C-alpha cells in the first residue's frame, strides 16, 4: 500500500512536472472560484441591505 502510493506519487520520474501542472490548475481555478463567489455574496448582502432600507423608508 505504502509502496503503491509512493510509486504513484513518483509519476514515473515526472513527478515535478505532473504535480506542478495539477497544482497550478488547482490554484488558478480556486482563485477564480473564490473571487467570483466572494463578490457574489457581497453583492447579495449589499442589495438586501439597500432593499430593507428602501422598504423602511416606504413605511415611514
Amino acid at each position, binding site marked *: 500500500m505504502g509502496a503503491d502510493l509512493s510509486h504513484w506519487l513518483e509519476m514515473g*520520474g515526472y513527478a515535478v*512536472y505532473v504535480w506542478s501542472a495539477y497544482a497550478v490548475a488547482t490554484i488558478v481555478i480556486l482563485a477564480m472560484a473564490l473571487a*467570483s463567489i466572494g463578490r457574489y455574496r457581497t453583492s447579495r448582502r449589499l442589495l438586501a441591505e439597500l*432593499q430593507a432600507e428602501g422598504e423602511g423608508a416606504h413605511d415611514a
Partner: protein
Amino acid sequence: MHRFANPTRFMRLSGAVLPWLTAATIAALAIGLVMALVLAPPDYQQGETVRIMFIHVPAAWIAMSAYGLVAGASAAALIWRHPLAEIAARSAAPLGAGFTLVCLVTGSLWGAPMWGTWWVWDARLTSVLILFFLYLGYMALGQAFDDPERGGRAASILALAGFINVPIIKYSVDWWNTLHQPASVMRMDGPAIDPAILAPLLVMALAFTLLFGVLLLVRMRTALNERKIRALRLAAATPEAAYGRPTSLTPREA
C-alpha cells in the same frame, strides 16, 4: 431567446439551475480527477506526463470557446444593445483568461520533459499567448473610459476584431511547422486516441465546461446585483429619480 435574455427571468432561471449545476460540476471533477490521475494508463511514448494532457487540453478548449462567447456576446451587445449580452461577455472574459493561463503553464510543464524546452515561439504557442493578452486587453479597455458605455463599446469592438485569432489557433498546427502535436480528438475521421486516454479527457472536458458555466452564471448574477445596487443608490441620492428608471426593478429579485 429574447425571453431568456430578460434580466428578471435570467435571475430566476439561473438561481434555480445553479445548485444542480454546482453538484454536477463537483461530481464530474471528482470522477475526472480519479480517471486522470489513477485509472488512465501511462502513454507508451510520453509515460506519465500524458496526465498533464487531461488538464491542458480541456483548458485550451475552454480558453477558445470562452473567447467565442465573449466575441459573440460582444456582437450582440453592439447590434441589439442588450444589457445581458454585455454582462455575459464581461463575466466570461476573466474566466477565459484564467483557463488560458492554465493552458499555457501546463503546456510549458509538459513541453519541458517531452520537447526539452519550456517554450518555443511557434504559431500555436504564440497565438495562444496572444489570446491571453486579448483577454487582458478586453478587460482593461472596458474600464479605461470615464463613460462605461464608451468603454464597453470599445472593448466589444476589440473582442470582435480579436476573434480572427481563434481559427488561427485552431489551424496553426496544420498551417505552420511546430513542435506541437496536431489535433487528435476533433478530426474528420474520428479521434486518433486510445479510449483509455480519451475517456478521462472527455470527463475532464465536461468538468471544466460545467465549472465554467457555474462561474459564468455566478458572475453574471453578481453583475446584475451590482447594477441594481447602483440604481438603488442613485434613487436614494436623488428622490425624483426614484420615479424614473429604477421603478422597473422588482425588489425581490436578489
